């Protein structure tokens, strides 16, 4: 082999490797089914084994500002939210066992069963804390492409798989590059959009030894009153195995 042909061979080899690697990466995501993509996006907002985080909720509703700090322990379909601040609501607890929800507070004799639709604060419903299971709660009826802040996205049209889901329909933008949900529009049964949410992922968790982006902020804006904004900031994220006892109604001390 001449020096020239050897150089051409190396060049061809490098090109082949580069194209091959590129193809491999794009195929890695391209080979995922829409349901798998949705599941990947869910992983950035919850965890099957267990996750703990703090949510700082700030809401502006008709000009009135409110703030709550919650500690959330979540695993699979269950979560426990404990209100830490302000003092007026400290000690209140919201236990979500799948779609069954219970609210307890100091002074109340027993936990009250509540529905996912009930309001938590501002534009956030109770179901928003635990709504990490879009893949389980919604069917993908249509997929297309879209852009959010210059980032190419899969645009999923999600329809509630049964009437236990918090929302009837969600339009959900998932980043093609990062496989995280960037934006969502929530619709009522009558087809009216009533709020939108944008998500940020500045937290990081480690799953199977690999770092993974994790939700850091969710900003909910009312579709009716644009100035009504609820911001949920997620911090102190820890992945850990959470035992069944955390979600047990018999141990929910008041």
């Amino acid at each position: 082999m001449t020096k020239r042909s050897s150089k051409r061979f190396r060049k061809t080899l490098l090109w082949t490797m580069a194209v091959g690697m590129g193809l491999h990466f794009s195929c890695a995501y391209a080979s995922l089914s829409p349901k798998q993509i949705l599941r990947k996006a869910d992983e950035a907002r919850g965890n099957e084994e267990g996750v703990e985080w703090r949510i700082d909720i700030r809401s502006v509703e008709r000009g009135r500002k409110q703030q709550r700090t919650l500690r959330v322990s979540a695993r699979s379909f269950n979560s426990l939210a404990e209100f830490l601040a302000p003092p007026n609501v400290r000690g209140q607890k919201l236990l979500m066992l799948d779609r069954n929800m219970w609210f307890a507070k100091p002074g109340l004799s027993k936990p009250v069963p509540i529905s996912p639709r009930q309001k938590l604060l501002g534009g956030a419903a109770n179901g928003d804390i635990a709504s990490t299971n879009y893949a389980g709660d919604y069917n993908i009826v249509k997929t297309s492409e879209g852009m959010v802040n210059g980032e190419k996205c899969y645009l999923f049209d999600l329809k509630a798989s049964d009437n236990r889901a918090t929302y009837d329909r969600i339009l959900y933008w998932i980043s093609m590059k990062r496989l995280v949900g960037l934006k969502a529009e929530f619709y009522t049964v009558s087809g009216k959009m009533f709020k939108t949410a944008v998500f940020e992922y500045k937290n990081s968790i480690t799953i199977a030894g690999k770092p993974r982006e994790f939700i850091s902020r969710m900003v909910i804006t009312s579709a009716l009153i644009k100035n009504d904004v609820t911001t949920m900031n997620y911090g102190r994220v820890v992945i850990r195995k959470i035992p069944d006892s955390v979600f047990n109604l018999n141990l929910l001390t008041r």
Partner: protein
Amino acid sequence: MQTTLSKKLNVLIIFVLLAGMVWRPAPALSAEGDSPGSSEIRKPAEAFRFDLRVLSYGIIQQSSDSSQNPGNNFLQIPRYTGNLEFRPDLALKTDSLDLMAKPRLRLEYREWEEGSREGRGDWESDLYVNEWLARWKANENLFVSYGRENLQWGPSFLFSPSNPFFPDNGRRNPYEEVPGMDFGRVIWIPDSAWTVSFIANTDEGRNDINLPGPFERAYALKMDYQGREGYGSVILTHRENSENSLGFYGGVTLSDAVLVYAEGAMIRHDYALYPRRDGSPFGASMERIHADDSTVQPAILLGSSYTFAEGGTFTGEYAYYGPGYSGAEADRYYVLRRKAAEALAYGGPISGLGRLTLWQTVNTGLRHLRRNYALLQYNRNNIEDCIDLTFRWTQNLDDWSGQLTALGSYILGNHIQLFAVGTVNGGRGDTEFGGLLDYQCMMGLQYTF
């Protein structure tokens, strides 16, 4: 008094000492800014919790002029009450042991406008521990505890027939605490869907309700199921010197807005008092007519709630309470009560018998006097992120007396909450809701430190 106070203080001191002895810095999890997977030592502040709520409230109420309380001479219900309550909650959580105590200090001023105490006023103070608990975690699936608890369960508002221990489920007025009873509990959690509890009610604790008979120890086996579709529980109870009873509750979240639930029990009311005709001066007396038979009566409650898009929730419940009085028994009961009330004014032994009978008619041992009840409730929380409102109508479907309750609270800043609970009873004096109070209004302020 001195000894009792000293005992109560000892309990507090023991709790604090125990808390100090068992506290160990427990390894916890990474905090904000830490790299995931790293660990930190749980701060003492996170292991020990101290919350203090101070409630100051006043009550204005009007006693009914009924045969149960003629001229307010029998129950002597004060017209005005002023209260100051200190409610600290202490808790210590370690890896294997949880300790909790709720000592209470209550100062109360009462003033009467009717009855034998008319124009008088008095002060009362009380220091007590309403609840306390020591819970040991044997492992992640097994918990053993003993303490004084307000042990409540079930989804219903009207009453909780499945709970064999507490006649009051605390829903009527959330600012009044239900007195705790003493329980030992073993809780086993085999998996996320099932829980099995063994519960021993060893003492009446502070819940010294005026039952016609003495307190009897009770033991319950409770099995809970939690699924995606709903939840359910079965409670088998054995009371010493009594028959067994079976209770249950369950519910389903039909949609994000609709909940349906049921609660019930098959119960014996061998200790409850019923009016029976006899040769006594009033022609009848209150007796435990089911003391020697094994009649089992059902108590069933069905309920549902719907949450509107704007956030308000409407709840409806119907309850059938089998042990309650039939129409004939109710007629006999009210005739007996009227005769006992008249006898109060006569003086002498007949007055004493009247007093005893009225004590029995107000403490029958039944959770409700009659058999059929309905509840309608509208509740909306976080209105403008600061107002909670509840309107509740309870209807006795047998004597058509009713009770309207309105609960409201307003959050004023991060520490102060204003609250009000108003109750208006409708019905003649010889009806269940018309028999004790015409109305009651409670207004106050809660400061949380």
